[in-house]
């Protein structure tokens, strides 16, 4: 079993009511183990308690209850300046009265590291973040991306057991942010330091993290690897917060031999839920927009009459074009796919994808993302077209909360 870098035991943080402020439970009885060398992310909307958790680990806030240990040492009576952690702040918090070299060497100077060694390590740290030779620059002369790197170097130069990052990329523009995300991830695997990262950006969390804790109202809603969080969200909040999700109201109509669900006036096959669900229970079915495919209605002959090419038909039917008078619906049923009939009510071209809104017979609607590939029949639907919304039974998930 991997070594524990940071452990939270029943940690709570309550901010008492003050002038004009209500009593707030920012973090509620959190239990957590973060492994050594892990890239761990707290993800959630603002006010979910993620930053408070990070600040408690850093020592800027004291837990109201519970205990935090870092590398096995209880941190209850250890002030921020004595903890084996360093922080990269959201606004970088570079010292404006010091130049780049002095900023990066600040922690070493406080620890009375001799000047020659300090200079060497500052130089190494700056080279690590690709800012070599910037020692004598003023921090105010640097761009946001450069300041972010200096903040990173200033923390890493102290060789912390754990590096805490509080939305460090929030102030960067999208393109730079994507670049730095990859750099941070590379840096982390290269150095092997535990990174604890806080963000509200789900894409950022998915890109970089080994494990993600999705938080809301001071409670971890789900904790797991990015794929796990995205593919099998534990509840409606996680499914909605991470990426885009369609929710359909359903009722469980069969549990043996296989699970079947009534949604949008149709009975469909579904994979068994993670939690216990009884027959006839009202549940929510979650399905990602990119997991849904759209098929035309009618017979193969109808499609050919509309001018659909042989290549498009082959792609549509996975290479096996059915006989001319068989319907698309029959084909889909035969393949064991879920197919809900509907009507296209909106079609938006967004470059990489086409985004459709499909209205189902009971009035609920689905968002469908279709990749904009050439030779695909399903990129050409128009508003008013009758379609089937199609997915594999295991792609959709039953949620009870």
């Amino acid at each position, binding site marked *: 079993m991997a070594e524990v870098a940071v452990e939270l035991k029943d940690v709570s943080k309550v901010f008492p009511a003050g002038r004009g402020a209500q009593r707030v439970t920012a973090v509620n009885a959190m239990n957590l183990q973060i492994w050594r060398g892990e890239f761990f992310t707290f993800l959630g909307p603002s006010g979910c308690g993620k930053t408070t958790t990070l600040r408690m680990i*850093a020592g*800027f806030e004291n837990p109201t209850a519970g205990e935090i240990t870092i590398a096995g040492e209880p941190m209850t009576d250890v002030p921020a300046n004595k903890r084996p952690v360093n922080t990269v702040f959201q606004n970088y918090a570079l010292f404006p009265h010091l130049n780049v070299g002095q900023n990066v060497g600040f922690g070493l100077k*406080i620890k009375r590291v001799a000047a020659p060694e300090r200079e060497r390590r500052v130089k190494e740290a700056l080279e690590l973040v690709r800012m070599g030779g910037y020692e004598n620059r003023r921090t105010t002369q640097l761009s946001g991306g450069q300041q972010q790197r200096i903040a990173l170097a200033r923390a890493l130069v102290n060789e912390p057991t754990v590096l805490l990052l509080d939305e460090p990329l929030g102030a960067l523009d999208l393109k730079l942010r994507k670049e730095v995300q990859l750099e941070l991830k590379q840096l982390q695997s290269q150095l092997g330091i535990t990174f604890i990262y806080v963000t509200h950006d789900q894409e950022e969390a998915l890109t970089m993290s080994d494990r993600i804790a999705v938080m809301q109202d001071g409670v971890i809603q789900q904790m797991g690897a990015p794929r796990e969080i995205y593919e099998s969200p534990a509840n409606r909040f996680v499914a909605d917060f991470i990426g885009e999700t369609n929710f359909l109201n359903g009722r469980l109509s069969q549990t043996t031999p296989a699970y079947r669900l009534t949604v949008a006036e149709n009975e469909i096959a579904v994979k068994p839920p993670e939690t216990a669900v009884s027959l006839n229970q009202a549940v929510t079915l979650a399905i990602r927009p990119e997991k849904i495919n759209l098929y035309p209605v009618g017979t193969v002959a109808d499609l050919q009459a509309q001018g659909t090419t042989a290549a498009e038909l082959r792609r549509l039917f996975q290479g096996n074009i059915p006989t001319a008078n068989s319907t698309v619906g029959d084909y889909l049923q035969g393949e064991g796919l879920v197919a809900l009939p509907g009507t296209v009510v909106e079609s938006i071209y967004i470059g990489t994808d086409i985004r459709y809104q499909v209205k189902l017979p009971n009035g609920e609607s689905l968002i469908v993302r279709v990749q904009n590939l050439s030779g695909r029949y399903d990129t050409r639907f128009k508003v008013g077209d009758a379609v089937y919304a199609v997915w594999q039974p295991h792609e959709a998930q039953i949620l009870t909360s």
Partner: protein
Amino acid sequence: MEERRRLSILITPSAIFMLVLFVLPLLIMVVYTFRQGSFGPTSRIFTLAHYHDFLSDRALQGLLWRSVVQSFWISLISVCLAYPVAYHLSFQAGERKMTLLTIIIVTAWVSFLLRILAWKVLLGGSGAIASLAQSLGLSEEGMPFLIYSQEAVNLTLIYVWIPFVALPIFAGLERIDPSLHEAAYDLGCSRPEAFVRVTLPLSLPGVVAGFLFVFIPTVGEYVTPSLVGGTTGVMFGNIVRDQFVRALNWPLGSLMSLAMLIVVLIPLVIAARLFKFSDLAGL
């Protein structure tokens, strides 16, 4: 061009105001330094005699130097006493911040003269401090204990100036991003280390502004010395006043004022070189 014309129209009123009320009087003062007499026919004779008199009068120069040194110490002590006030206000006062700030501002609003007179009573022969000293047997009855001395002037001025110094320092401290303190702790600083390495250097513009707020008017101070200074507490400003009001030697008085102005400008220029003006002004 259009932009420039609009700008020049906008600044014209304030430029006229400055010209008429500051630059012109200053020029008149400089002209006066060259006149032989204050008024009448002698005032139309131009001479460098007063320059010769002033430059050869060691006593007068000595008094100016003494007033500058005295003002320096008054300013320094005011800054040292006001800093903890501003620090407490900015970092420790919490919800009482506004209340305390209001008290300080209100104190600063009370008439300058009234506050000096209060000290005159306090320090006087029958004042609270003298009475206490008498009851402890430290001094005889009716003896002016502290009043009419340079120390009395210093004490009074420091008291008067503290709120004026505390405010720019407070403004300077408030401008420091709180995450910089956290960054200092995060990088291993104890509280005193964080203060010395981060808070203090970043609050320096406010400190210098506060220092100058006190230093500049104190060099020319004459009200306080004349009320609580007695004969030993005389400052350069009193002599300047005497030249105008008693000796009626306006040219020498003007020259002494000019000398004082130049002395005061030196630290101002140094401060302006070291810091951005916007930082000093607390903007």
